[in-house]
């Protein structure tokens, strides 16, 4: 048995003992609140104690110091379980790796171990009401004080802000230079009294995100991540991670617009023998499994040292288009009952209503197509965009 196989076996054994098997019937939780926060923290701590948190992170920051192979092995085993680690997903996927890469030694030592141990929860604060696709046109400001910086402005679409201890925020520190150049990334204490978190209700009636207001929020000088004025580079790294995370997926068994769910829906309505419905279900399977395979191809290439570049955007785009397509199919399967919110339809109908939102989250389809066109295919950039105009001379949304 290789050390990888051994690691995998150990992970499997631990998960079988400590985690719930994946429950297909339970479905997914639009507000992410099914598990109490304390339970998530407890589980994350146990995971860390067992040696399965921060698998590839260095030991000196609380990680396990292992390789990508171990991480993949663990993730593959974990796919069969329902881990209550939702509140840590962002911290471990975005601020964590960024601090690991760009943070000071002090920041790494201070913030990474409590994150891995489940003691502190993180969020990320990028999007603003006036800066959606064009994140770099953000208007939140950070102005220098004697001891550090004063942050003012508004962020939006912040998942988990309501229970986060810290956040990584990007703010404008120099409005006189081109928009990408005047941005700095900070670590901000979400418990500061100048921070106000308001739930953001979306089309489904749920509030899976927040608006976050910053009113004279002081941060110390050593809260800067990376260099002053270099916040955009840090943000790009984080956004790329986000797109890969969102774009992955494929045949998620809990997806109400997935193949398994829609087959069940068709059967419940006696449409499993309808030729046209069967054919569309076949196409759904093909698209869904291809998306899964595409994710695995990118994964294998990464492992093999091939740069996947911006191809994560292609996966994100494909996933968004598939969800919208599946939402149409679901509607046609349901037929006239779609107008009525029958109990058996609740999850599917909510997913249909949410599908356009899902396509927008993490960058609109138009932005993803631009990224694929320019960075994967090498096409020319859009004419006339304002990369070099000083921010304070830019045209912004009214």
């Amino acid at each position, binding site marked *: 048995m290789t050390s990888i196989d051994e690691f995998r076996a150990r992970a499997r054994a631990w998960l079988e003992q400590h985690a719930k098997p994946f429950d297909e019937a339970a479905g997914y939780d639009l507000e992410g609140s099914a598990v109490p926060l304390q339970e998530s923290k407890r589980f994350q701590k146990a995971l860390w104690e067992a040696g399965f948190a921060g698998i590839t992170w260095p030991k000196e920051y609380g990680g396990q110091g292992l390789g990508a192979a171990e991480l993949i092995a663990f993730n593959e085993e974990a796919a069969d379980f329902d881990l209550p680690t939702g509140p840590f997903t962002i911290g471990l996927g975005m601020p964590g790796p960024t601090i690991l890469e760009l943070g000071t030694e002090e920041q790494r030592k201070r913030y990474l171990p409590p994150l891995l141990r489940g003691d502190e929860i993180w969020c990320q604060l990028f*999007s603003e*009401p006036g800066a*959606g*696709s*064009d994140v770099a*046109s953000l208007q939140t400001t950070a102005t220098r004080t004697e001891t550090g910086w004063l942050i003012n402005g508004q962020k*939006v*679409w912040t998942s988990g802000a309501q229970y986060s201890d810290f956040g990584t925020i990007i703010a404008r520190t120099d409005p006189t230079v081109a928009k990408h150049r005047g941005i700095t990334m900070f670590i901000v204490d979400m418990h500061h009294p100048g921070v106000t978190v308001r739930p*953001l*209700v*979306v*089309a489904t*009636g749920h509030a899976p995100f927040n608006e976050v207001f910053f009113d004279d929020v002081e941060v110390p000088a050593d809260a800067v991540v990376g260099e002053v004025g270099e916040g955009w580079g840090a943000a790009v790294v984080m956004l790329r991670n986000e797109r890969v995370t969102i774009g992955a997926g494929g045949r998620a068994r809990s997806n109400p617009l997935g193949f398994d769910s829609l087959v069940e829906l068709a059967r419940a*309505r006696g449409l499993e023998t309808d030729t046209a419905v069967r054919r569309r279900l076949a196409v759904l399977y093909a698209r869904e499994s291809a998306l899964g395979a595409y994710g695995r191809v990118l994964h294998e290439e990464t492992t093999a040292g091939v740069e996947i570049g911006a191809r994560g955007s292609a996966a994100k785009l494909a996933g968004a288009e598939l969800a*919208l397509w599946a939402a149409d199919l679901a*509607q*046609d399967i349901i*037929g*006239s*009952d*779609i*107008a*009525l*919110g029958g109990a058996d339809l609740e999850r599917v*109908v909510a997913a*249909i*209503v949410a599908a*356009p*939102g899902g*396509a*927008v*989250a993490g960058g*609109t*389809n*138009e932005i993803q*197509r*631009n990224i694929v066109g320019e960075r994967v295919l090498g096409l020319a950039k*859009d004419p*006339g*965009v*304002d990369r070099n*105009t000083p921010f304070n001379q*830019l*045209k*912004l*949304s*009214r």
Partner: protein
Amino acid sequence: MSLIFTDDQKSLAETVRRFVAQRTPLPKVREVIGGDQAYDQEVWSRLAGDLGLAGLTIPEEYGGAGATQADLSAALRELGAGLVPSPLLACVLTAGALLALDDEEAKREVLPRIAEGALVGALAVSEPGNRRWIPAEPETTATGSGDAVTLSGAKVAVLNGAEAGVLLVQARGPQGVGLYLVERSAGGLTVTKDEVVDPTRSSATVTLDGAPARLVAGDAVAALDRVADLANLAIASEQCGAMLACLTMTTEYAKVRYAFGQPIGAYQGVKHKLADMYNLWALADAALREATRAADEEPAKLGTAAAAARTLSSPGYLTSAKETMLLHGGIGFTWEHDAHFFYKNAIAGNVLAGDADYQQDRLADKLGV
């Protein structure tokens, strides 16, 4: 008669548009649909009475204005554009069915009250477990005869069933399929308001357990076919109005929302989607004009033309409403923004009075394919 609006139609449309803007703009609609009522009673009184919409296409002899389908269509576009909750569609279908039947007494009794807005009528045809809007063979049965007829069965997706004073129910009687009037107060009648996806429409599940009813004389099958045409006209009208509202809203946003230093409408990714939305609207609109022209001028072509208009307006609106959300980005996904109300209205409207399969099958039938 032509395909473009007459001066009277322009003026009617303008009146309705002004009324909607003043009395029931979208923030007001939000309040109403957030409450207990299916619609604002006062708004409905004004629409029905002052603006005369409830009786617009009812002949003068029954208390209506005897106007054309094109007139009604012009008004419905404006109500659709404003997502105005009202029982107008239910009344149009109920009155249309009665007018297509041959029961003078029933007409004289019911139509004038509908025309003045005093009575809401609802059409109860769909049944549980049957995907067709109008079942060919309803399972609801009528027994007895003369004054002692009673109905038993269940009807679903009854538009404004909970607000109706009278129901027109399709049932199988001793002489075959017929349409029966049932008073809201009838014993054995249970009406349960549905939870709905689109809060601007009210729908109900109706059970009849020996409910007293009265057969309306006439050819029910022909009357229901006429009703299907009228439903297509009316729904396509509302949807064309709503599509134009989505197009206008999104076009305006594309002019004032900036990204990368340009209004987003300058980018072909947005511009071309809006051009496609324009075409979805323009073609559905043209098909609707042809359908109302046929209704008023060449009735033999109405069935085909109305089904064709609806075959474009429903999916066209669904696409337009979805694009409205998508092109507004994150903002379009918030509850605060109106886009999701249009999207939900489009989702429900796509299957209202027959889903896409139903419409396409019916159009193919009418085309003799």
